[in-house]
């Protein structure tokens, strides 16, 4: 029997467990459709703000020798209103709308824009490491996290995910705060604050100087975080960080993730990576005699 790749992240049902992570390729519905046809189980949009943002000047991305990328795109996005209009005609694709803001009202106002859209979930970006006043600066403030999650949960019946990262407040505490405030699931982790300097010209390469490290170097860190969250809390987890092969994906399931997201792998292997990973997971499940993804979630925690 063909293994079933469907998975549930709490109230969110997906046919396939591999999603497009936020920030990647996420500005055109045509591209979303293409990614869905290419095997993505869901696509997470670029983080949307109340107003359009141009982001930082180039260079906004840097390829690290030894693997991984550092980016400081600066959350460029067309704004929630423009974006909502663009995805209004969406019928087929499970779209998870990523939101970024400084105060609870930002999130509340943006959610109103999506009333006519088919949205699978909202993902609150509480962890972007390179834009002031939003992202990690919000995620590091427990009171603000509590207010934002509570406000968002009161504004919509659509499931809400919090995306956490490595800031100055221990991410496990941020996860705990989000859970107490009624969050439906956690995405872990965001990129890790980093930088690169060119030795010839002796200056930081990214225009913003600091960016977020993604890709294979952060995979073991993200995996550790998923394992720690699933050991401490009873909350559905989406693993994210450096996943580029089916083995990586399975590691995250075994650590306790119900689904995974990827982004940097697209820069290395292009969008064929979705089906490559789906196929690999499927073959692994056949070999291990699993009929559903949930049978392997958290197995690495058995003593």
């Amino acid at each position: 029997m063909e293994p079933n790749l469907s998975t549930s992240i709490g109230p969110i049902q997906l046919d396939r467990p591999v999603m497009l992570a936020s920030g990647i390729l996420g500005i055109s519905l045509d591209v979303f459709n293409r990614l869905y046809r290419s095997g993505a189980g869901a696509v997470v949009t670029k983080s949307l703000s109340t107003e359009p943002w141009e982001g930082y000047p180039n260079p906004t991305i840097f390829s690290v020798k030894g693997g991984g990328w550092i980016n400081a795109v600066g959350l460029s996005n067309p704004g929630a209103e423009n974006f909502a209009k663009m995805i209004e005609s969406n019928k087929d694709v499970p779209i998870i709308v990523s939101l970024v803001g400084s105060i609870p009202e930002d999130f509340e106002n943006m959610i109103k824009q999506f009333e006519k859209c088919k949205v699978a979930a909202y993902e609150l970006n509480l962890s972007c490491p390179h834009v002031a006043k939003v992202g990690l600066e919000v995620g590091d403030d427990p009171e603000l996290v509590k207010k934002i999650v509570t406000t968002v949960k009161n504004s919509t019946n659509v499931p809400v995910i919090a995306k956490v990262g490595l800031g100055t407040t221990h991410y496990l505490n941020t996860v705990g705060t989000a859970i107490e405030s009624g969050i439906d699931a956690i995405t872990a982790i965001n990129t890790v604050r980093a930088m690169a300097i060119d030795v010839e010209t002796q200056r930081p390469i990214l225009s913003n100087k600091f960016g977020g490290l993604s890709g294979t170097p952060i995979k073991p860190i993200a995996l550790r975080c998923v394992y720690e969250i699933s050991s401490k809390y009873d909350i559905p987890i989406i693993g994210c960080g450096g996943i580029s092969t089916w083995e990586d994906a399975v590691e995250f399931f075994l650590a306790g993730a119900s689904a995974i997201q990827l982004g940097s792998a697209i820069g290395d292997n292009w969008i064929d990576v979705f089906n490559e990973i789906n196929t690999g997971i499927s073959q692994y499940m056949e070999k291990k005699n699993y009929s559903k993804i949930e049978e392997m979630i958290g197995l690495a925690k058995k003593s």
Partner: protein
Amino acid sequence: MQRNHNHTTIVTIEKVIDETPTVRTLVFSDEVMSNVLPGQFAMVWIPGINELPMSVMISDESGKAAFTVRKHGTASTGLFNVQVGQQIGIRGPYGNSFDLKEGKLLLVGGGTGLVPMMRLLTHVKPTDDVTVLIGAKSKDEVFFEDLANRLLANNTHKVIVSTDDGSYGEKGFVTDLVEKHVGQTKFDGVYVCGPEIMMYKTVQTAHSRGIFVQASLERMMKCGVGICGSCCVGEDLVCKDGTVFDGDHLSQNKEFGNFHRNKAGILENY
């Protein structure tokens, strides 16, 4: 060790050529960039200023390559102002290339869109009959006419320039010349790079007559590697699926010729 095309390589500008008052060619030594395929591009870092995608220009000397840039925005003006001895960073090459047919070929270029066309000319066979159409606003802005003639010295060829104001060559838009030549000759392949409207009309003219046509598209780019999504045209990503697209494919794309995205990713009309 083979270099990873995503890693930035620092090169020094060795020569600066003024092509027109607003267009310059900057020459540097780099074996990889000297051998890129027509249509491929590099991401070019001007330290402290910006980074932008540039089609890679040919050089007369082996082992060398160049960028031909028109000063326009912050990034291109920054590159335009780079002087001999200054360092810039390059990564790539990225993107695909043209499917060069044999026989009667038509190449159409406007402005710095001529760069991939010049590189394409280095790949034509001596037996090909090549027509090159160069479009410019006025006499001041005409460049690469002599170069095109030189590259085609061993071919049956024509290089025809048109200027919008008639100050040099034929008067009118280059797309009118395209219409005329495509109407007269059954070309085996048509290749175009330049302003989007020029490409759109050229693609329409050739494709509607069943002639094979390809265009090398330009979009705002941030990453160049298929991650940021800035350069999407409909469902296509210029950096990964292009820069070169078939007319057949482009004629199905609703954004080509009509819209581009700004830095925030909002669609804007041409």
